[in-house]
């Protein structure tokens, strides 16, 4: 049985990854999960310098999911290089570093710092975090801005890049095409959908930032639809995420057109989710008589 997929020249032993920001840099979940079994570990977003993130409360539970406004707290790319990458290097899995920034130059700085890091296989460029005022979301909601920043990053990146798209747009197909036209090697989607929760007794926002990003099973139908639309709009591979909890969910994304899939918030519900998804995909394949996982990618038209 072949479960390996190829994204922009990088071979993953299976399509199952971790969604950025939900798995730390792998260390925290290594107690639960054998990282060697994962297709890839995608790290928390990292900037050129440390970011403090937003005030608390940063997370809130909602029906079938959660809101978060972490605000891209991160220790900066230097710490990632000194601490997280050496840790990850010891595992037989691919490493995708998620990159955030406030300006094009911020992104370029990180990408350049990571250029000579052999243990980094791909870069995922987060231009879609809804939780930072001046952050990447400005790039992620306008196709021209997305095109420009993608082009600039692509000039400097040594590893293949994945532009991570925001669902908070009128046309995801248009955004996907802009990323592709500017040379992105792949795209990933969806980031969180902007949401809000109000505590009606305290009469305050549940999240200090007022709004937070919605993730979890609640958003899955939107994510599947966007993966379908995006993968039909471009030729570059698509990595799908949004509410994946089970192998069935992951397969749904692949049938819709995703080459890779990532488990996000549901790691918090079930720290073994990634492994269960991998095992479930294998069971599905044998049950359905599928020899090569690539057969199911985009198989429902």
């Amino acid at each position: 049985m072949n479960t390996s997929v190829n994204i922009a020249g990088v071979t993953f032993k299976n399509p199952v990854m971790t969604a950025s920001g939900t798995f730390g840099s792998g260390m925290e979940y290594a107690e639960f999960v054998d990282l060697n079994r994962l297709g890839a570990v995608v790290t928390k977003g990292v900037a050129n310098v440390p970011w403090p993130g937003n005030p608390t409360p940063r997370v809130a539970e909602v029906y079938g999911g959660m809101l978060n406004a972490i605000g891209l707290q991160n220790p900066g790319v230097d710490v990632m290089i000194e601490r997280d990458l050496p840790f990850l290097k010891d595992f037989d899995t691919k490493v995708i570093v998620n990159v955030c920034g406030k300006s094009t130059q911020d992104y370029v700085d990180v990408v350049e710092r990571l250029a000579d890091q052999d243990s980094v296989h791909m870069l995922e460029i987060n231009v879609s975090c809804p939780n930072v005022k001046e952050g990447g979301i400005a790039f992620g909601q306008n196709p021209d801005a997305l095109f420009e920043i993608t082009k600039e990053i692509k000039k400097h990146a040594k590893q293949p890049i994945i532009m991570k798209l925001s669902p908070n747009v009128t046309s995801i197909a248009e955004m996907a095409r802009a990323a592709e036209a500017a040379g992105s090697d792949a795209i990933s989607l969806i980031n969180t959908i902007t949401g809000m929760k109000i505590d009606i007794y305290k009469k305050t926002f549940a999240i200090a930032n007022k709004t937070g990003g919605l993730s979890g099973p609640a958003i899955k139908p939107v994510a599947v639809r966007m993966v379908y639309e995006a993968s039909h709009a471009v030729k570059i591979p698509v990595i799908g995420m949004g509410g994946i909890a089970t192998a069935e969910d992951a397969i749904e994304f692949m049938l819709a057109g995703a080459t890779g899939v990532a488990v996000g918030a549901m790691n918090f519900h079930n720290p073994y989710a990634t492994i269960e998804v991998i095992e479930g995909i294998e069971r599905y394949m044998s049950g359905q008589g599928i020899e090569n996982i690539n057969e199911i990618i985009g198989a429902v038209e």
Partner: protein
Amino acid sequence: MSKKKKIGAEVISQRLLAEGIMDLRLRTSLAEDAKPGQFIGVYPQNKSTLLPRPISICGYDRENKELRIVYRIAGSGTAEFALYQEGDNTDILGVLGNGFPLDKAAGKRVVIIGGGIGVPPLLGLAKELSENAASKPESVTMVMGYRNADTFLTDEFENYGKLLIATEDGSIGTKGNVIDACKENGVEADVIYACGPMPMLRGVAAYAKEIGAKAYISLEERMACGVGACLGCICKTKEVDDHSHVKNARICTDGPVFDADDLEL
């Protein structure tokens, strides 16, 4: 220390301790690793709610794999837990957090201060300090604050030393808060362990400074992962720490217990 797990636990018993306060005992191998001040995540079955509820460990019997939690019915998750009966199963995540630094107590005058639903984890602490030779304090005083006469766990605290009580309405002990009770009784301390609402913890930190004691306080924050991955549950620290590099410690893993001197309260 053994690995963190998500694991099924069987309900041994559950009873009402005070109005809206439940005392739940679980059979789980996690008890073997439990320390006072640590917590577990309890998962509701209700599928509209997916995140674990952080609940402190109130007590444990390592040999019999018993874990005890005492919690207030605060919302949909805890309301569901309150219905569990002997033989029911539930999923828990743990053991989480650092726990109280017991070694700081050795030979010291220790004061344990708790308020409201911050009281339960301190029972496990009081018990451990009374039983653990290595960290044996010179003396232990306990100061627990409640809203009114509907107190809980006080009879059990009394097994481990002197217990002072403060109630908001003055129906038992000092009328006022735990700091009022400390002052009224001229409580002295080298080391304070505390858990309770943030205003109380600020009061404890100030009182500790005043009397020249060290304070170790247990914080609360909204959590998602409970294992240090999501960065949801941070508190502000005075110095840049090793993990975040931005003066943010994770309450779920770097805490929930912190040296008050390290925090920006």
